Structures are given as structure tokens and as C-alpha cells.
């Protein structure tokens, strides 16, 4: 069935507890080939945690994850690299896979940082490092790409260009993308499926249907709905500040 439906990874009712508190609970979603699934939600809603569960980084989880590919590219939200280890951009590019030099150059050119290839990672700016991270993840031509806030710290024009690049990559490589963002406005036009998280799945669906929604237009204006489609929706419950669910 997985072959028919082109599913790359499927989360079945997964959750994880830490210090007797649920970080996320009851999340089900699937990423298919050539599709972009976006996780949205406030800070601390479990977006990164869900991505890490999908990647298999967390082991002691509830529910189960079915993964149908091992060719994965990951851009983590936070990455701290210890500078006792001298590392150039080109060393970093082959970190998890032996990638040919042409492919490294191609990926670095696509994200606009080919000139930094010989530089030491420690000397890059935040935005430059983010572009290198993205280049590394796409250079191995993955089947599944997990991008956790991939454009943080990138300048505004760069941000739009990188989102366009991400869309292009999903088409060209026909890979599935699990994207995390809190930046609704720039991402939504490229997304096939949206999952709204707040400790659990509040709701999920296609953004395009909702963009034509009259309520949405009233909320964001006619122009906004033409240029950018935003996933607008209603919840049947509210959250208090600590994330607990208050039923309406």
C-alpha cells in the first residue's frame, strides 16, 4: 500500500512524554512523495518534537512511525557545533554521506553560498550557516526532506528565494517535504497539506480550499488571498497559556 500511495513516512497516533508531561500527543500524519506538508503552531506546540519523532531521533515514543525511506535530509532548528573541531563548509557537506563534488557545488550554488565552500563553519553568519544547512540537506538528493525553520536568520529577499527553491526541489526530486514554520504568509502558497499543532493536532487540511473561503478574505483581505493563500480555520477548543485544552 505504501508503494501505491507513495507514502514516505507515516505517524500513527504518536506522542512523547518528558518528566511526566506530554510534549505532543496523538499526532497522526503522513508525508507523500512530491508533497509538502507544513506543521504550524505556536512556540512550544511540539512542531520540532513531531519532526524528530518522524525522523526517529526520539526512541521512547507512544504510537508508531512507519518509515519507508532511509534517504533523508534534515535541517534542524537548532544546531550547535563545537569549535574544538575544525570544520570547513566542504567537510560539513559530506558529513553523513559521500557526495560527489559536482553535487556539492550544485547544492551550494542553489542556496547561494558556493563562495563559502572553503570557509570555516565557525566564521559564517547565521543566515549563511542556514543556507549551508539547507544545501547539505538537499545535496544528497533525499527522498524525504525535513526542514525545521529552514530560513531562520536569512534576509527577507533570501527567504522568499529559498522557499521558492524548496518548492522547486520537491518538484524536481519528487521528494516529500515535512516543513516547519511559524511564518504563515510566505510558506502557505507552496504547501499541499497543513497540520496545525498545539500539543496535539488541532486540525489539518489543504490550504488552497481555505484560501477561497470568504471568512478568510474578510480576515486578510482580497489581495492577500490572491498572492498568498493562508490556511484559516476554526478550532473546537481553546488553549490556556500553558497549553492545556479548554473546551468551548
Amino acid at each position, binding site marked *: 500500500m505504501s508503494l501505491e500511495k507513495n507514502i514516505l513516512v507515516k505517524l500513527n497516533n504518536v506522542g512523547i512524554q518528558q518528566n511526566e508531561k506530554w510534549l505532543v500527543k496523538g499526532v497522526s500524519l503522513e508525508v507523500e512523495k512530491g508533497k509538502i506538508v507544513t506543521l504550524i503552531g505556536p512556540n512550544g506546540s511540539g512542531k520540532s518534537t513531531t519532526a*524528530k519523532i518522524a*525522523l*526517529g*531521533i526520539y526512541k521512547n515514543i507512544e504510537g508508531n512511525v512507519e518509515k519507508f525511506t*532511509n534517504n*533523508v*535530509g*534534515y535541517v*534542524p532548528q537548532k*544546531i*550547535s*557545533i*563545537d569549535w*574544538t*573541531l*575544525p*570544520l*570547513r563548509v566542504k*567537510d*560539513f557537506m559530506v*558529513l*553523513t*554521506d559521500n557526495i560527489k563534488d559536482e553535487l556539492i557545488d550544485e547544492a551550494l550554488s542553489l542556496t547561494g553560498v558556493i563562495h563559502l565552500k572553503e570557509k*570555516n563553519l565557525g566564521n559564517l553568519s547565521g543566515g549563511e550557516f542556514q543556507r549551508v544547512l539547507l544545501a547539505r540537506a538537499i545535496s*544528497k538528493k533525499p527522498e524525504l526532506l*525535513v526542514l525545521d525553520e529552514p530560513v531562520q536568520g536569512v534576509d527577507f529577499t533570501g527567504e522568499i528565494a529559498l522557499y521558492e527553491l524548496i518548492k522547486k526541489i520537491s518538484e524536481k526530486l519528487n521528494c516529500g517535504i515535512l516543513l516547519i514554520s511559524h511564518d504563515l504568509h510566505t510558506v502557505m502558497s507552496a504547501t499541499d497539506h497543513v497540520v496545525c499543532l498545539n500539543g496535539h493536532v488541532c486540525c489539518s487540511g489543504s490550504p488552497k480550499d481555505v484560501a477561497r473561503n470568504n471568512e478568510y478574505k474578510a480576515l486578510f483581505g482580497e489581495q492577500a488571498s490572491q498572492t498568498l493563500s493562508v490556511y484559516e480555520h476554526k478550532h473546537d477548543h481553546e488553549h490556556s497559556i500553558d497549553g492545556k485544552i479548554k473546551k468551548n
Partner: protein
Amino acid sequence: MFDDFFIRALVAGIGIAFVTGPLGCFVVWRRLSYFGDTLAHSALLGVTIAYTLDFNIAVAIFITSSIIALILVKLERKTNLPGDALLGLLAHSSLAVGLVVIGFLTFIRFDIMGLLFGDILAVTTDDLLIIWIGGAIILLVLKLIWKPLFASTVNYELAEAEGLKPDRAKAIFTILIAAIIAISIKMVGLLLITGLLIIPTAMARNISDNPQKMVIFSIIGGLLSVFLGLFSSLEFNTPSGPSIVAAALILFIISLFKIKQTIQLKN
């Protein structure tokens, strides 16, 4: 020209330096200096077991150090004590227990100084075989786990997410550290073996801008330290371990001038 024992010590030292170079890089990168120290301290216990049961010293040390590493992993999970406290606990208690046991073994004459600081007179032809065959195996295994170990040293989650099995690489690496301690203890001594792992690597860090260079300079640094240390040990009749580590320190100090130059060039 030289006595046989000195040639043996030299051949042993060269073999050890080839292994401590790359292993030392990972010890420094992964911040495992005190972990190495703890395993080395526990080696004394291995030595006493070897003497009591008339067993090969290197094998006995390898087994005790691996057990201590396992105990550490268990304690880390079971207690709320920080890692450095657990390391101190295991290092000193295993050293103490080892020394107490030696006190009981009055029927054997121990060269404690030799165990603690190394003794070039003690290296036998059998030891050479153990060092070179053991060293070759260590390097081969390290080469096999290089990718996942290196990737998870840079970032654990990236390595895990992209399917490299970093936990397995880490466990194997721990065994490799126990192994290098086991094969080099006679030469360098258990108090100073971590010095040979760390100081040439620290020197290499000062003069390298990428990981491959750092590994190569670390090996070269180790080889130079062994040569300088052993010749001075022969010349001045000093214990071999401290002489080798002191030579490594001199190389490290020289490498500091290189940093100063690069900083000046940058400005």
C-alpha cells in the same frame, strides 16, 4: 648501536602513536579527556587481576576498562549525579581498590612506578605483537565507524535522523579507548596515557583548519613525542611515560607560536 630493549620500546611507541593520533582527536572533539582518564585509572585493577590469575595484562586491562565504561553508562542513567562526579568516583575508587588489592598480593613483587608511569625496559616481543596487531585492529574498526562517529560528534541529531546509527558508533568507540589503554599501558603508564591521547591532538588543533589535517598532525605529534621522549628517557634515565608526555608538551608550546602568527596575519 642501541640495545634491543630500546629498539623494542621505539617500535612499540611508533605503533602506539599511530593509534593515539586519530583516537585522541575524537577524545578531544567529544570532550572525553576525563573519561579516558577514568578508564586508565581502572586499568590498575586489571593489572592486579592479571597477576592474580596469571593472565595476559593487556587482555585483563581491556576487560576491566570495558566493564568500568559499562558501569559508568548504567550509573549515568540510574543516578542524578553529574557526569564528572561519576567519572571521579569511578576513577579514584578503582585506583584505590587496585592499590589495596596490590597491598594484599605480598607474594608478587610489583613495580608500581612502572605501572603508573611506564617502563621501556618492560616491553617484550610479545607486547610488540599485541601493540601492532591490536593497533591495526583498532585503526581498522575506527575507519569502519568513522562516518557515523564523526557525524554524531558534529551533531548527534543529524547523524541519527539521516540513518547513521550514532549510538552504536559511540559504544564501539568506547571499546576502542579501552583497547588503546590496554595496549599502551606498559609504555606510558596508567597515569599518563590520557596525556598521550590529548596533548599531541591539542598541538594539532593549533595548526589545523580541517579534521583530516588535525588527525595527521596529531599522529606526527605523537610520533615526535615518542622519539623525543624515549631518547631522553634513555639519555637521562627518566621513566618513559613522563618523558614522552613532557616531549608532547614541548611540541604543544611550540605550536602556540604558530597560532600567534596566524592571529597576527589575520589582523
